């Protein structure tokens, strides 16, 4: 634990245990989503050529990156990942992104994907609102993740013909243009 790092957050008026609960739930959601997106990706055969598969892969890898980036902050603040991965999955802050009953139904698959991203956008908006002006490091991290989750939502929303996303997929899979500066491992 980074003692003073936690103290300054507490003294700014944040209940660190509540914040840690939110960060753990967010990390759990990233971890489980990485797992479920793996299943969605391998089943997205031939949807829009292989275009949808590539975008799911970007989102999948970036969600894993979000987990990697969140974890050090949890420990800095005195928290810890649950020892039992089943408990970690149970506290995940977003519902499981199950493969649709008909895996050949592209609209059903896109609905799962876009709803998962919308849940993530709400999650990080909540953390940003809680930490803004008080916990600069967590805010900076949550905002970086929020940028990427919003782009993921826009990509899948575009596929659902809800309107243009305004941007294109990554140059190589899951490069995390906003979160990569928080990563210790080489990515992209």
């Amino acid at each position, binding site marked *: 634990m980074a003692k003073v790092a936690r103290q300054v957050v507490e003294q700014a008026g944040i209940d660190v245990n509540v914040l840690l609960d939110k960060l753990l739930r967010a990390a759990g959601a990233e971890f489980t989503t990485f797992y479920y997106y793996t299943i969605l990706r391998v089943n997205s055969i031939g949807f829009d050529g292989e275009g949808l598969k590539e975008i799911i892969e970007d989102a999948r890898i970036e969600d894993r990156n979000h987990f990697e980036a969140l974890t050090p902050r949890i420990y800095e603040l005195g928290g810890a990942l649950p020892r039992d991965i089943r408990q970690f999955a149970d506290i*995940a*802050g977003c519902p499981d992104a*199950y493969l*649709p*009953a008909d895996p050949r139904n592209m609209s*059903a698959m896109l609905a*799962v994907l876009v*709803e998962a991203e919308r*849940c993530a956008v709400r999650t990080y908006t909540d953390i940003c609102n809680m930490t803004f002006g008080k916990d600069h490091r967590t805010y900076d991290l949550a905002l970086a993740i929020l940028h990427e989750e919003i782009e993921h939502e826009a990509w899948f929303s575009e596929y659902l013909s809800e309107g243009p996303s305004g941007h294109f997929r990554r140059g190589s899979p899951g490069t995390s243009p906003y979160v990569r500066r928080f990563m210790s491992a080489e990515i992209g």
Partner: protein
Amino acid sequence: MALWKLARAAEIPPGQTRFVWAGEAAVLLVNYRGAIYALSGICPHRNNPLEGAVLWGHLVDCPYHHFQYDVRTGENHFPKNVYPEDMPQLEQQVRPLRSYRVEVREGDVWVDLG
């Protein structure tokens, strides 16, 4: 009929929620577009209290797992809308919130808890 006075209407501005206890019953009061709604205050997914629930449009968002409920009916919206129909064991997770009748009298919010 068991009417409980649970809040002043002015304490729940539009777009806001308020979590209260009525005896042993947890109740979530919601102001959606100026109308007050009352729902069970316990999310049926994992029985977590809906204290701090956020309203997004007409959907109440559970702060624990972000399950969403239609404030007007209590019906689960998300993840029911994407849960696969070939996994019936998930239906238990997406049961509706109980919805209660509300009367606002002279600025007081009265809820019929039955």
